[in-house]
């Protein structure tokens, strides 16, 4: 079965005032139709940039130097802006990070959604309103008719997020990119939003690219996980595999550094600091923080190697003595 999304050898640079920032370095990952992939990493890992690249929205000062992004077989990077617009917002939708500022404050929630139907499907105003109401119900809004009339500043955080999700789903996209969908939300609301996303994915068959720094969110929502560090993709695995037997030293360190309420753990912070992307370390960018760093890590970039079923790691230490390590 063909993959829904194939990102290959993606390299993205930003020309900033302070110099060249090498934001993405040879990133590879794939997504299948209907699956939820978690893209995990700290800030500066490149996860948001990857999402923006998929949407074809890398603009100056950013440039894509190399690579391809194949969506349903078509390389999106080779498309013209007009052609790309047929995908963006239609077949690939995004829920941006800051929900508060992403909604136009002078347009009511109902109108925000119904406009999309009018634009993309040419519905009449009345028909679009009806569809918007259905959609609000689908995303679990308690009182859809009331919500339709309200403006973003009158909506709570959870409701705003639901409206954003509704807007994203209006065009029945094949791929939904959710950028930190729970950041800034209260815990209980966040739990409900995650449940909503899981539910929607099952019901509509939409694939979700979930970008987050929270491993807990990933564990509860995703089927597969891709871990990024400083612009490099270090590991991809099915979610259980990743938590039970993380292969890459960074993934392991990350898992060990999270405080948990279910079990007693000793907190071990991830060693070192995030490397500067302006003068990134040569070879593997994790080597300055890695307890297993070797000579070769400095010169060559590790390629992705299979570790288990559907489980790939980019690490030289793997295969030699990674099992022996803690």
């Amino acid at each position, binding site marked *: 079965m063909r993959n829904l999304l194939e990102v290959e050898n993606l390299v993205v640079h930003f020309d900033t005032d302070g110099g060249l920032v090498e934001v993405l370095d040879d990133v590879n990952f794939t997504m299948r139709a209907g699956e939820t992939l978690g893209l995990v990493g700290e800030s500066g890992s490149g996860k948001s940039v990857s999402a923006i690249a998929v949407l074809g929205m890398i603009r100056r000062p950013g440039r894509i130097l190399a690579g391809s992004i194949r969506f349903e077989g078509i390389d999106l990077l080779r498309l013209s802006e007009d052609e790309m617009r047929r995908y963006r917002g239609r077949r690939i939708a995004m829920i941006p990070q800051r929900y508060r500022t992403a909604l136009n404050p002078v347009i009511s929630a109902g109108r925000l959604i119904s406009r999309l139907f009018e634009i993309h499907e040419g519905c009449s105003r009345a028909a679009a309103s009806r569809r918007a109401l259905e959609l609000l119900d689908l995303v679990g809004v308690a009182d859809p008719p009331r919500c339709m009339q309200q403006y973003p500043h009158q909506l709570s955080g959870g409701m705003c997020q639901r409206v954003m999700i509704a807007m994203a789903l209006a065009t029945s996209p094949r791929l939904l990119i959710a950028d930190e969908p729970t950041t800034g939300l*209260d815990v*209980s609301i966040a739990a409900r939003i995650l449940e909503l996303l899981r539910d929607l994915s099952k019901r509509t068959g939409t694939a979700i690219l979930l970008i987050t720094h929270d491993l807990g969110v990933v*564990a509860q929502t995703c089927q597969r996980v891709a871990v990024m560090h400083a612009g490099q993709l270090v590991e991809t695995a099915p979610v259980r595999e990743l938590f039970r037997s993380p292969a890459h030293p960074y993934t392991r360190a990350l898992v060990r*550094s*999270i405080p*948990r309420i*279910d079990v007693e753990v000793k*907190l071990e912070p991830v060693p070192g600091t995030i490397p500067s992307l302006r003068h990134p370390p040569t070879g593997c960018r994790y080597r300055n923080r890695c307890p297993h760093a070797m000579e070769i890590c400095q010169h060559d970039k590790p390629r992705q190697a299979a570790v288990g079923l559907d489980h790939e790691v980019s690490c030289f230490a793997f295969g030699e003595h990674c099992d022996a390590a803690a």
Partner: protein
Amino acid sequence: MTPLLEVAGLRKSFALVGPKTWAARLRGERPAVRAVDGVSFAIAKGETLGLVGESGCGKSTVARCLLRVIEPTSGSIRFAGEEITALDGRQLRNTRRAMQMVYQDPTAALNPRLNARRTIEEPLRLHFKMTSAERRERLNEVVAEVDLGADLVERYPHELSDGQRQRVNIARAIAAHPSLVVLDEPTSALDVSLRSRIILLFETLQKRLGLSYLFISHDVATVKYLAHRVAVMYLGVIVEEADSASLFAAPHHPYTRALLSSVPAPDPDFRGERLMLHGEIPSPTNTYAGCRLQNRCPLAQAGCAEPVPWREVAPGHHVLCHLA
């Protein structure tokens, strides 16, 4: 042994103004938001009390009342045996030396025009008569305690990373030898890999300097790690209080249970109890007869509209619930 901090019956109301309230005022009512509605707790020396809750529960208001940034409407706050609600001027300055705060947003909490050295030295200037050399020495001590490179002190906030800025905030808080530090969501604005480092730093500082903490956070897991005792707040009141182990092992209040079950555990196979509250957090302007959670609690009964008892369900473990 007198606790270092004793808060009793703390209340803070914010009066509502605006056209919608005029009608109510003409009727003689005084519409207000009761942000904190009768909160009591105590912190011993060297202890950490975790205060958890979601937005609108009033935990930040409690912190600001403690530090007298805003004035409590009523209630008592005793710090080191002294009632501080009535203090002002010089006396308050002294209390301010002993009770400090670390803020949530490390960038916003620093004056962009002052470099790290001046920011950290400020409490020393304000509270002690020290020579420049003595100040410098204390600066170096403090900077070493918080693990901030000594070469970074001349830098300005925009020249430091997030983690470094938070360390400057922490250094400023401990510079004048406080006994209590209020931590207001100190890691929420930080990156995941930094959080554990800062938490471990707090732990170390507590052991070395004998500090007490009031740790306010919505990140329940972090609170569990650091706090000896935990109090859960909802809509201005504490609904459950216990020592950390008890609270997490056996939460009693439905809100606590719902809250804990909402925290996504980094374990895909985790199948913990899932208690869901319906609806959303109601407006804090409402008034309540009986339990505040009534409208959302799946276990609510008719009797929940009666005034709620504060019961001890286990040694040191209190719950504000009819059903406990």
